[in-house]
């Protein structure tokens, strides 16, 4: 029985899910283990610190046991030490410490401030000798770290503390140890009410984690060496207490997170077990029918009528199909869930796809006399998504709507553009979904109730799969309904794959500073032109010999803020060190950087190029995750290198003319125009990579590598000026009037003008200006002839014409490859350079689906 083999497949997919689950638990256990060891390390460090302070205590016992007063101080210090080590509640410990400070060092007023978690401010945490009102005020007023640091002037330092006299001058020279010997014997040293003594709490790494501020000494004398050093011992204890408590808190948080994760993973395990038992039940149901009917038929084949046999075979057939459908759905779902889904993003017209789906559902609807209509906000709504998967979602929502709608009802598809997203609404006048069920309809196998499933058969996976597909595209699906009135499902999909925000990060102030706005545009421009979902711009921190991420698209904020790469290390570091671009086709197999693929990379290919100003590497541009999901190629490398050169130039100009906002504005305009142009051309149906084609033709014609790079860039920007031409004029059939013609004829000039602020090669401007010139001199804007036209422009002219012919216009059908090629041949010598046309027709051929590919790549 064939279906049972597939059943085994489905069940083994289910077993895989379980194995994954076990693996997940194992990693949780591993995390717990490492947490334990870090806790042990913390305890150990705590012991060390305690021992160190005990030793200091011993020293003081020896030195200071001469007076009872001193002995009492030591006792107090030791008591506090004990208390600190036995108590992990930070507030209790800090309270004890400030009181110990007050008593042992003889100050009426003691304030302890502790650096907050963000490390920006010192907050008042413990007090002695202060009234409620004063405490409230102190608690409200945190001291910024910089302000505190500004007090730590060498001239105020005594031992490791700081005494700021009201006279603002230091009272005695410090010796080599930073200690002022005459302090203790200073006779006339009365404490003034404006004097302040700070005792910083230094952590092991030398950073201040807090400080004591003391005032109003009991003896009204300036602090002695002994007093200060007593304070400093107490400060050591306070540091231990603070670090212990925060480690403890951290451990508590981690434990809690771990517990939550374990609980979640158990819930997931339960769900998966439940899923497996539901799956097997669902699979066995059709199988049971198939087996029972087949056996009954075999047994009674001689005693049954042909009609009856036909009926039995009909059931077997129907149930086999159901089984098949079920297995397909389960496999698909498991792929969606495991993230191993294959998706091909390409631009397509969602409006016409919706029409197609509605027409296909027509026959199903006709049987029930249901009217299916489509409303779209424009005849052409181009989005970049997986066409077949989108069709699945539309079909599923549409057929559900028809299934649950009574005879004579209506089902409506509505497609609208909202900003950079499309909204697809599927609305019916059906039986609706009860409120208690609406949250569960996207669950696997969920059907509102079994009696409904008899009336409306289905496997209960359609909505789950649709949700998976929509979310895989970065979209969202929601449902609303009123029982008895109808249901409305809404899908929101991003128009292009790259609609992620650019995150900027200022880690360090470089000598050449460029605004966040311009940085954002730079990254956006790179991502859009390169068709990459992930792009990052790293800058060199020369002081530390590291790279950090200045801005990125498609990376999480913590990655942007937390990444630092040593020059020479890993990919970006290699690029920065050698000043050479790097193209990695498969990161897992690359001998230089072979490593498992990080989860932020959907594809295994990446491209990294240096940004050089005056010959020095100042940054690195990285791109990953090509929207088409294919690896980057040498053509992409040529284009990105070319873009990097423009970025370098733009940054140099902007930072050289820091005061001139004109420079910044012009650069921003150029970048924005390029971004818009890239988006526009990506959304053209069937448009291919102009840059790739240009490089291929240039290479074939023997142009230098540098010229190839230039051409890759020009191919990506030569039409930025079209953004200003009213596009509706191109949509009108018939001849263009003079004014419109003037607009169109001016676009090469406009394009050249727009990119000028980021241009340094005369060549680029020349090619852009001349890409509508003709060999016979009848082109525009200058009417150049033959070899007067730069070769680059002659290449772009052919590519441009081919693309415009095969894309078609609303008033003119799109030509096939053969037709377009015939036209190019026909205009050889008059409009086009013959050798460019020849190179082009030798290099490319149409693939099965009508797209242009390199000859010989079809296999």
């Amino acid at each position, binding site marked *: 029985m064939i279906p049972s083999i597939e059943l085994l497949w489905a069940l083994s997919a289910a077993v895989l899910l379980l194995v994954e689950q076990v693996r997940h638990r194992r990693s949780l256990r591993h995390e717990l283990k490492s947490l334990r060891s870090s806790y042990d390390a913390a305890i150990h460090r705590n012991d060390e610190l305690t021992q160190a302070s005990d030793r200091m205590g011993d020293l003081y016992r020896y030195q200071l046991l001469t007076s009872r007063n001193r002995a009492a101080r030591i006792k107090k210090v030791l008591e506090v030490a004990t208390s600190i080590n036995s108590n992990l509640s930070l507030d209790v410990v800090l309270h004890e410490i400030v009181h110990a400070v007050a008593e042992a060092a003889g100050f009426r007023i003691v304030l302890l401030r502790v650096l907050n978690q963000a490390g920006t401010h010192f907050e008042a945490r413990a007090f002695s000798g202060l009234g409620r009102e004063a405490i409230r005020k102190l608690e409200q007023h945190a001291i910024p770290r910089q302000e505190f640091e500004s007090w730590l002037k060498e001239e105020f330092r005594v031992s490791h503390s700081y005494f700021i006299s009201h006279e603002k001058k230091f009272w005695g020279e410090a010796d080599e140890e930073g200690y002022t010997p005459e302090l203790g014997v200073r006779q006339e040293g009365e404490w003034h009410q404006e004097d302040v003594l700070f005792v910083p709490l230094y952590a092991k790494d030398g950073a201040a984690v807090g400080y004591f501020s003391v005032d109003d000494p009991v003896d009204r004398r300036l602090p002695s060496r002994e007093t200060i050093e007593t304070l400093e011992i107490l400060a050591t204890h306070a540091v231990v207490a603070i670090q212990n408590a925060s480690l403890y808190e951290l451990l508590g948080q981690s434990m809690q997170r771990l517990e939550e994760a374990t609980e979640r993973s158990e819930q997931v395990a339960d769900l998966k077990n439940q899923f497996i038992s539901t799956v097997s039940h669902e699979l066995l149901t059709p199988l049971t*029918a198939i087996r029972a*009917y087949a056996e009954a038929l075999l047994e009674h084949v001689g005693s049954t009528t042909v009609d009856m046999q036909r009926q039995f075979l009909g059931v077997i057939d129907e149930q086999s199909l159901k089984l098949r459908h079920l297995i397909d759905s389960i496999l698909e779902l498991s792929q969606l869930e495991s993230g191993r889904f294959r998706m091909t993003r390409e631009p397509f017209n969602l409006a016409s796809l919706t029409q197609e789906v509605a027409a296909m559902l027509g026959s199903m609807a006709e049987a029930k006399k249901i009217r299916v209509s489509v409303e779209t906000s424009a005849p052409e709504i181009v989005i970049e998504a997986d066409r077949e998967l989108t069709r699945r979602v539309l079909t599923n929502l549409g057929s559900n709507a028809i299934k649950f709608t009574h005879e004579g009802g209506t089902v409506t598809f509505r497609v609208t553009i909202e900003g950079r997203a499309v909204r697809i609404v599927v609305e019916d006048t059906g039986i609706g979904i009860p409120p208690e069920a609406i949250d569960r309809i996207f669950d696997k196998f969920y059907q509102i109730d079994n009696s409904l499933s*008899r009336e409306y058969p289905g496997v209960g996976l359609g909505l789950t799969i649709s949700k998976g597909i929509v979310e895989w595209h970065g979209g969202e699906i929601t449902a609303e309904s009123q029982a008895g009135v109808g249901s409305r499902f809404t899908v929101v999909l991003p128009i292009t794959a790259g609609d992620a925000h650019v995150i900027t990060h200022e880690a360090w102030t470089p000598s050449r500073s460029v605004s966040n706005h311009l940085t954002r545009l730079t990254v956006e421009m790179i991502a859009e032109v390169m068709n990459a979902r992930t792009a990052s711009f790293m800058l060199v921190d020369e002081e530390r010999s590291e790279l950090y991420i200045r801005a990125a698209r498609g990376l999480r904020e913590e990655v942007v803020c937390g990444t630092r790469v040593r020059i020479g290390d890993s990919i970006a570091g290699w690029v920065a060190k050698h000043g050479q671009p790097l193209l990695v086709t498969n990161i897992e197999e690359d001998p230089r950087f072979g490593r498992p693929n990080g989860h932020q990379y959907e594809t295994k290919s990446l491209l990294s190029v240096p940004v050089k100003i005056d010959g020095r590497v100042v940054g690195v541009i990285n791109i990953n995750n090509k929207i088409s999901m294919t690896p980057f190629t040498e053509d992409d490398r040529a284009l990105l290198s070319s873009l990097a050169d423009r970025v370098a130039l733009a940054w140099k100009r902007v930072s050289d003319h820091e005061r001139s906002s004109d420079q910044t504005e012009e650069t921003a305009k150029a970048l924005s125009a390029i971004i818009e142009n890239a988006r526009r051309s990506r959304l053209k149906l069937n448009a291919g990579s102009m840059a790739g084609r240009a490089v291929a033709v240039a290479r074939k014609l023997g142009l230098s590598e540098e010229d190839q790079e230039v051409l890759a860039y020009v191919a990506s920007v030569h039409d930025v000026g079209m953004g200003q031409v009213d596009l509706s004029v191109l949509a009108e059939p018939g001849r263009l009037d003079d004014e419109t013609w003037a607009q169109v004829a001016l676009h090469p000039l406009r394009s050249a003008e727009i990119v000028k602020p980021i241009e340094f090669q005369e060549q680029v401007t020349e090619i852009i200006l001349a890409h509508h010139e003709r060999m016979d001199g009848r082109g525009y804007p200058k009417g150049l002839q033959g070899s007067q036209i730069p070769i680059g422009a002659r290449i772009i002219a052919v590519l441009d014409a081919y693309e415009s012919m095969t894309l078609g216009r609303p008033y003119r059908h799109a030509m096939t490859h053969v037709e377009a090629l015939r036209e190019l041949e026909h205009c050889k010598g008059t409009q086009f350079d013959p050798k460019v046309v020849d190179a082009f027709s030798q290099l490319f051929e149409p693939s099965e689906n009508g797209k242009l590919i390199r000859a010989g790549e079809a296999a």
Partner: protein
Amino acid sequence: MSKGKILVVDDEIYIVHILDFSLGMEGYEVVTALDGEQALEKVKSEKPDLIVLDIMMPKLDGYEVCKNIKSSAATQHIPVILLSAKGRNVDQKLGFDVGADDYITKPFSPRKLVERINQLLGQTVSERPAPSA
């Protein structure tokens, strides 16, 4: 003359049909129910000689139906065969705990099911005093 009356309970209409056919060919009279509640009504009104009972059904599941039948003096003598896709040992044990006379897992062979029914009815018929006595 029928060999006996059998109540077939399953929410899957195809299964009900095929059992109706197979048992009918064997000379049994078949009555059907599509859920647990209907099954209990039919037990009362039809007084079947044996019940073939699915477990996973809406409203009232097979375990509950079986428990109900086996706890009433009027119906506890009727043999019950549980027929289910739940194939684990615990499911079977639960079935016998609620008093089922046999447990057959889906997918099943109609031939074997008929044999089990013949067996069970053969025994019970012989043990039962003749109606005329």
